[in-house]
């Protein structure tokens, strides 16, 4: 039987203002009915361009070449625009990353769903409507009939992605291409959507291509996998083969750089791939990974390599024989540096807290139009917390849980409505900016927008020193260059501008800027979530190293439990502005108590082939913070909820050691 989709030696050359750029070169894969192919790669690996080439949706002027690009009986290379538009949305459906913007805001869900069937199948309005209701129910949307008249903005992100999936199923497609379908969603929703896709695929016998930067996602849902790097497939095979016995040094490095709960010693160093993902505008010669490869040979730099078979069942693109590649590399320096380090041994925690919040509350008045009275939104509700020297406290929760507001309060950028925040025993709102900023600094999520594009790297890092008038200009430059070297930036970047740097390098600039005043506390707000996986590990390692050397205290804000286990000593889990559980890192991961903490932990997808996606039974979606449920705010989504949970908000109660939890059911030992 011939495969449903066959792609052989696909090359795509995009036309840009600066000239041509070959985004994809010699990419081959096949997908059968009922099979899932996972394409994994970092930004610029060409994974999305390949899928757009299949859909025929690349911009005009793009050159697409291939030995074979066939779907079912159609040659996609020679198909007319008319033939292509009959395939799109009909036989081949595509689901995109951004559920918030991928639906047309001015039309109802119903119209957007039904038009697809009316367009391709000449269905009557009633038929299409019936089908839309059927599919909405299938993707787990309640009150489906009434949803049809709703508009996209009335639905949450998770619901919109369900609608998107249901819509793309309207015409019973043979192939679905899902491009980062869960990347923009909260972690607990991610598992639900992946399970949904997987179930539908089995039930309807669809071929599925899932594209992601996340090894965990691809590993859990795919049968086959293609690892892409700089526009090429560098390793491909069954998921079990590739992930359990990776051959290519890049695949190996990528897998090592993912923090896996339970497998990495807390605070230990993650494996990371040195260097940066190359730009596709580079004129490549030889192996594209050569400049980052630890096993680079002379041959790698000269000859380009073809994909070849390893006897283990997968194909890989490397000059070395697979037996050599699979033998463990000689232990290198960094492992020695990482070993032997245990929390608490090198840095003694002091008893007096450095920074603490005492029953802090932050209430925003949210205006809802000119004539209605503004409503209070409790972003942070009665929160107490101590941060002691040497600790890494992680605040975990999904979007809307108040973690960023908490960070702003602790930085002194937001005054608490009630309660107070003290730094070194003094009220932080009474301190001057200068005093405060010498002690507390911050690193933000998006290194692209948090650096002033009109200042050079040197100026950006030097700025805090200049504001504090620390030393002469030449002394300042000296300090800046030292710190640049420390965070792994070449000194000659001093006069470069942020747009000349990659994401990882920019985040290093942000770290350097935060450290230049030698603060005691650094608040890191999602410091790695905008970065590529291989770069993420570099930054996490850097943060850990700096902490040891400079005796720093971190407050880490994140949604990613895997990162938390790797670097935190204490964890605070937040839900709708309240702390639901607080404990030392070990207890959180070994014996989590609160049902929400458990769900968050379950949502971590490690690259574990065959393990499937855990089902997370969280009813309904994340509530609107302006109108939180009464009693325990988590009760509508909790499987253990009883009457008391609806009636009374649970208090944070001490359990054992450092662990406290706010849950009636935990207190009664039901859970």
């Amino acid at each position, binding site marked *: 039987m011939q495969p449903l989709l066959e792609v052989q030696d696909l090359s795509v050359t995009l036309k840009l203002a600066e000239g041509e750029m070959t985004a994809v070169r010699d990419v081959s894969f096949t997908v059968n009915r009922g099979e899932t192919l996972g394409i994994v790669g970092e930004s610029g690996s060409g994974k999305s361009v390949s899928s757009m080439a299949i859909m025929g949706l690349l911009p005009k002027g793009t050159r697409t070449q291939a030995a074979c690009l066939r779907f079912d009986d159609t040659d996609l290379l020679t198909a007319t625009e008319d033939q292509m538009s009959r395939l799109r*949305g009909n036989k081949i459906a595509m689901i995109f990353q951004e559920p918030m913007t991928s639906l047309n805001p*001015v039309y109802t869900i119903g119209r957007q769903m039904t038009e697809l069937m009316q*367009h391709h199948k000449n269905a009557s309005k009633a038929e299409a409507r019936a089908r839309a209701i059927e599919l909405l129910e299938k993707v787990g949307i309640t009150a489906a009939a009434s949803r049809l008249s709703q508009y996209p903005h009335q639905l949450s992100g998770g619901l919109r992605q369900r609608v998107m999936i249901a819509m793309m199923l309207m015409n019973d497609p043979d192939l679905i291409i899902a491009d980062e379908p869960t990347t923009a969603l909260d972690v607990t929703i991610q598992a639900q959507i992946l399970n949904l896709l997987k179930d539908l695929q089995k039930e309807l016998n669809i071929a599925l291509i899932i594209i992601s930067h996340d090894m965990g996602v691809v590993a859990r849902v795919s049968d086959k996998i293609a690892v892409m790097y700089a526009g090429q497939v560098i390793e491909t095979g069954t998921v079990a083969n590739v992930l359990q016995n990776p051959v290519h040094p890049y695949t190996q490095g990528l897998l090592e750089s993912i923090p896996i709960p339970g497998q990495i010693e807390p605070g230990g160093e993650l494996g990371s791939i040195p260097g940066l993902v190359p730009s596709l505008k580079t004129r490549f010669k030889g192996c594209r990974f050569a400049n980052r490869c630890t096993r680079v040979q002379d041959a790698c730099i000269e000859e380009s390599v073809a994909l070849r078979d390893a006897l283990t069942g997968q194909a890989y693109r490397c000059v070395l024989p697979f037996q050599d590649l699979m033998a463990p590399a000689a232990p290198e320096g960094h492992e020695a540096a990482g070993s032997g380090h245990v929390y608490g041994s090198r840095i003694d925690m002091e008893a007096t807290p450095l920074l603490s919040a005492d029953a802090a509350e932050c209430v925003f008045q949210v205006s809802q139009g000119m004539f209605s009275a503004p409503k209070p939104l409790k972003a942070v509700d009665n929160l107490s917390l101590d941060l002691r020297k040497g600790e890494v406290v992680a605040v975990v929760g999904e979007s809307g849980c108040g973690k960023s507001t908490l960070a702003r309060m602790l930085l002194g950028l937001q005054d608490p409505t009630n309660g107070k925040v003290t730094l070194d025993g003094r009220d932080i709102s009474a301190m001057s900016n200068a005093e405060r900023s010498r002690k507390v600094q911050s690193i933000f999520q998006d290194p692209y927008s948090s650096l002033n594009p009109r200042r050079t790297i040197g100026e950006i890092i030097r700025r805090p020193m200049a504001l504090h008038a620390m030393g002469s200009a030449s002394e300042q430059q000296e300090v800046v260059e030292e710190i640049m070297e420390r965070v792994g930036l070449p000194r000659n970047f001093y006069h470069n501008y942020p747009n000349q740097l990659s994401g990882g390098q920019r985040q290093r600039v942000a770290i350097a800027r935060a450290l230049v005043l030698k603060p005691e506390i650094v608040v890191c707000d999602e410091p790695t979530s905008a970065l590529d996986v291989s770069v993420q590990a570099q930054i996490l390692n850097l943060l850990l190293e700096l902490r040891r050397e400079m005796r720093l205290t971190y407050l880490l804000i994140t949604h990613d439990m895997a990162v938390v286990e790797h670097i935190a000593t204490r964890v605070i889990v937040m839900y709708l502005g309240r702390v639901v559980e607080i404990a030392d890192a070990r207890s959180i991961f070994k014996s989590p108590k609160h049902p929400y903490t458990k769900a968050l932990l379950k949502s971590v997808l490690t690259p574990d082939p065959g393990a499937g996606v855990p089902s997370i039974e969280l009813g309904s979606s994340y509530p609107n913070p302006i109108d939180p449920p009464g009693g325990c705010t988590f009760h509508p989504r909790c499987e253990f909820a009883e009457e008391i949970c609806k009636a009374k908000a649970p208090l944070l109660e001490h359990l054992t050691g450092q662990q406290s939890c706010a849950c009636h059911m935990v207190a009664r030992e039901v859970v």
Partner: protein
Amino acid sequence: MLRFILKRLALGLSVALTVSLATFLLLNLAADPAAMVAGEDATQEAIEQIRVQYGFDRPLYVRFFEWFGSILVGDFGDSYYWKKPVFELLIERAPVTIALALGALSVTILVGLPLGVLAALKPNGWLDRFALSFGTAAQAVPNFWLGLILIILLGVMFPIFPVSGDSTWKHFVLPCFVLGTSAVPQVLRLTRTGMIEVLGSDYIRTARAKGFRPSQILFRHALRNALLPVVSVLAIQLGYKLGGSVITETVFALNGLGRLAYESILGADIPTVQMLVFFFALVFIVLTVLGDILNAWLDPRMRVE
């Protein structure tokens, strides 16, 4: 939806009152109204006589509430110059202006929208360059100049259209064209920018992935989104045009509200000026509200609960 409209109208009415109060104060405080009515060469005695006769000697607030009380019952007072109720004047003159404004708006829409859309389909293509040059030219050319050129060309050299008066539809062709052209650049650019943005959006990518053809995508999926910002601008433009275009009406000798406003300001015809300002304010308010309602109809996100 009804609540939304009522809210907007209530807001609009308060704006109209504020504008009226401001006009009232300006007219009465900027200069001595009695002296203005009496004319330049009047004696002090004559001025004093007028002051008493027209009631300018009474306190400001008394006169404001008197004026305000009478507009509530539909009485705008009598014109000093025309010696008849100003409301009758308005009724007499308005049809010409309304015809001119609607005609001009049609020209703006019929030229600006399609040109903007076409330009957006291929940014930097020849059509786009043409549209943008046309826009710049239309913006640079003053109304009176274009009017005069058209009169010479199509009225005198090739007498196709009459050049003055308002008795037939033919009289309106040239002035509508002149007045309409002046708003084309703004509408064209806004449509073009909106369309380029919309065509690059994620939901248009979705529409393409759904297998719709380019023309279907343009008209069914993109146009409505791209028009949202244009609607508000069109409402304001219609407001300007209904407010009377003094220049266009003068060049083509149309007896509309623009001319009336011009004459009554020169003649210190305070009741007429006051009524016109109040009327123009109301027009703007009603049109903005209409624009908002139209936008809310086009865009469900604007229907604030």
